[in-house]
């Protein structure tokens, strides 16, 4: 097993390296660039362009830019003021030494930018997925054991609708209903806030305030997940409860509850757990619609803005972190599956 893990990790490193080259090429070769002036002036003055190119390191050929991004430029001479004369070594260390460069937009280190947004995304997405799983599991179980009942059919319809309803529309409707229309009977203000992680005038941690701000974003984001997981668990459960060992357990005289949970659910959950492991990258990537609608300062918004403005360092960092999280979560899913299901073994 250890050799298997080691082998996979080495493959991961190789894959990430190859991906980094591919992503770097794609990001840079796509039309448009950070110097096309997204700002209100529609264009950047030509005199400013040379200066910015030098400050962003875009005046070098692409392979050199990639090399500097990877290993830095503190080992080579750079011309810092554009006068043609080398002025000493550069200051960048490269991502292999943990320096992801600085954002073209804010001039802050990329890791700082990500560090400000990532906890918010993990916080929201983890709670969304948790709520989704907690709701989906009972729904999935009941749908399976009461197959084709009214509950099952209505939940099936609901899950198709849930996957089909655009998140964006749903979120706007929720804001309209709970923020614009419904009023809080105690304070007279809106029933739920329109967005944000906390109320502005609260300092410190207020659990009630946090929960109130989570309700709508989690509702919007979780709907699709609930639909997806409950369907999955339903079919997984259906597979399991028709197995021989379930019939044996019932024949042994075990209670229905015991049969369903200890023997049925435990096995039915295995594929769900691995599915969850595969969904882990969403913790890092976030959901663009939810974050935009509910003004949640998260990774998806950061990435979207960086893409629009061609903020290459932020883009590359988010892409590489995203790629790493997907590859590693796949590995985790494989390992979990082997751990939970003794019939699976790797060499």
């Amino acid at each position, binding site marked *: 097993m250890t050799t298997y893990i080691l082998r996979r990790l080495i493959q991961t490193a190789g894959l990430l390296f190859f991906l980094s080259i591919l992503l770097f090429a794609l990001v840079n070769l796509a039309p448009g660039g950070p110097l096309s002036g997204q700002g209100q002036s529609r264009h950047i003055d030509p*005199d400013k362009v040379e200066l910015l190119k030098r400050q962003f390191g875009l005046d070098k050929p692409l392979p050199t830019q990639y090399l500097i991004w990877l290993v830095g430029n503190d080992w080579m001479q750079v011309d810092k003021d554009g006068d043609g004369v080398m002025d000493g070594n550069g200051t960048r260390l490269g991502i292999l030494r943990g320096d992801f460069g600085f954002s073209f937009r804010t001039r802050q280190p990329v890791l700082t930018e990500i560090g400000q947004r990532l906890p918010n995304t993990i916080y929201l997405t983890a709670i969304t997925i948790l709520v989704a799983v907690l709701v989906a599991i009972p729904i999935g179980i009941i749908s399976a054991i009461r197959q084709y009942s009214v509950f099952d059919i209505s939940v099936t319809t609901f899950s198709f609708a849930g996957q089909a309803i655009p998140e964006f529309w749903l979120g706007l409707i929720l804001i309209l209903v709970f923020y614009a229309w419904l009023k809080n*009977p105690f304070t007279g203000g809106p029933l739920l806030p329109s967005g944000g992680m906390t109320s502005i005038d609260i300092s410190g941690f207020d659990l009630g305030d946090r929960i109130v701000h989570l309700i709508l974003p989690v509702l919007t984001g979780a709907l699709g997940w609930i639909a997806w997981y409950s369907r999955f668990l339903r079919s997984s459960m259906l597979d399991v409860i028709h197995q021989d060992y379930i019939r044996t357990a019932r024949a042994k005289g075990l209670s229905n509850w015991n049969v369903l949970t200890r023997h049925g659910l435990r096995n039915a959950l295995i594929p769900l757990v691995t599915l969850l492991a595969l969904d882990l990258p969403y913790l890092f990537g976030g959901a663009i619609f939810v974050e935009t609608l509910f003004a949640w*300062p998260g990774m998806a918004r950061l990435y979207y803005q960086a893409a629009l403005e061609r903020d290459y360092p932020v883009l590359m960092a988010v892409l590489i972190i995203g790629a790493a999280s997907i590859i590693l979560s796949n590995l985790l899913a494989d390992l979990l599956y082997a751990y939970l299901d003794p019939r699976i073994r790797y060499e």
Partner: protein
Amino acid sequence: MNRVPGKPIFLLILIALLALSGCQPKSGTTPALGSSSIVIVIPEDPPSFNPIVTDTGYDALVMELVMLGLSDVDANGNVFPELAAELPTVENGGVVLDEDAGTMAVTWKMREDVQWADGTPVTADDVIFTYESIVDPELGGWIPGIDYIESVEKIDDYSLTVNYASIYTGYLTQFGGEQVVIWPTHYCDASQGFAAWDCARQPLSNGPFVLSEWVNGDHMTFTKNEKFFEEGKPAIDKITVRIIPDTSVRKTMLLNGDADLDMWTTEPMIAELEGQPNVLVSQSPENRWVMRIFFNLAAKGTTDSVATPHPILSDLRVRQAIRAAIDVDTISKEFFLGYAKPAWTEFFREPYVCNIPRPEFDPEKAAALLDEAGWKDTDGDGVRECRGCATAEEGYVMEMDFNTYSEFGEPLELTQQYIAEQLGKLGIKLNLKVVEGSILWAASTDGGIEQSGNFDMDIWDDGYAGVDPTDFLYQYYAVASAEPDFGYNFMRWSNDEFETLLEGVYTLDETQRKQDFCKMAAILEEELPILPLFTAVNADAHSARLQNVQSSANDLVTWNSADWTLK
């Protein structure tokens, strides 16, 4: 076990919601007793407080709350002193011209009663520090006019002289206006450089407000600067700037009273807010952004209009016909909800208003012009071809690309489609493309469509800030600006008389400038390298309780935040 767990759970959720709503603290609509507080909503986090670096508009918005320049521009285009005691002019001896050498020296006298929030006085040292940081070749930035400055000399603690190597007409806003403010020499770290210093994210204030908190991506909090030099101002104790990316949510917040000011309100939102008793919309007295059609006078894919002229657009009659076939009034009414004003020349803003007669919407005249120019539809397919035209091969089909950018939104896309329809009726076939602004305006080396000449006709909006169009005209119409990545003359247009006039307007003689500008207006009217169509509105929606908000085409709406009051 046969119970369907529907109703009880639903009831439970409802009860839980009600219970939690009791936990919810009072929202920000009722300010605490004795303090006044407002909320501004914007869609994006400002990258920093330094607009010179990024120029997104949001940076300038927050900068205007905390920092001052030597001067600033009001909504009517008048420059007024901020840190300066008075504006330097030729009359008061502040501006000394050397006509023979073609140089000038501008002496600024500063106010002596302005302090930074930590009590340090704002002095000429800060101005010189700002200048030196901007011109640093490694870590600096760029502002208009900076290349004309030869040196900045300190005279005493509150006066300095800026020596220009040529006549620069924008000297009044050299260290002020929309983008430039004075940075504190004792607080900013010069070694970090103007482009990246930390004081652009943790600014030291000398303006009406002080930054007290910034939660990245979420909100910024500003409190009243007790040391502000204007007595009794600002009237507002606290400003919260909240980042709300979605337009509908911002509008709902305005209507609900949870937001007091929305920036750059668009026409559809203005129309929706009309008639609402608790929301007002401030419009700028004059408009800046002119929606215009750019003609590529060089063949698509090339950048030399002399060697490879455009087979269709290089004929002036074609450009005139296109202009005559576009119904600007309908566009304004239907797609811009009546908020767009026709503009057919660059010179419609004070003080350079030139008397150019408004072109008529006359589709028949347009058709006649095209016939005369040798473009006729002989095969009956609705699209004209070259039949004896002067600029293309016989049989060349009158078909072109028509591009615009996506970020403006639906009104512009509808306008583009409508124009294509009108020109289609005329017999010109247009293939529509909507691209990201980033691709449209990128450098030619980055695949930029306009810089590389890869277009036929474009439509988008631009306009100059402040009162001085000189640099704007140079960037769009000068021959030197036609070289890819050296300017924005992607029409690749040139006119010798215009070039001469352009050189001549770099003078402080206002009478001559006015005359020369109007001569330039006449040339542009004759040759039509660009078709100005209409100006889009510059508006900011605000709650009725927030007073003295004045939208400005020359600056962000916070330019006069010190004067805001609450009813």
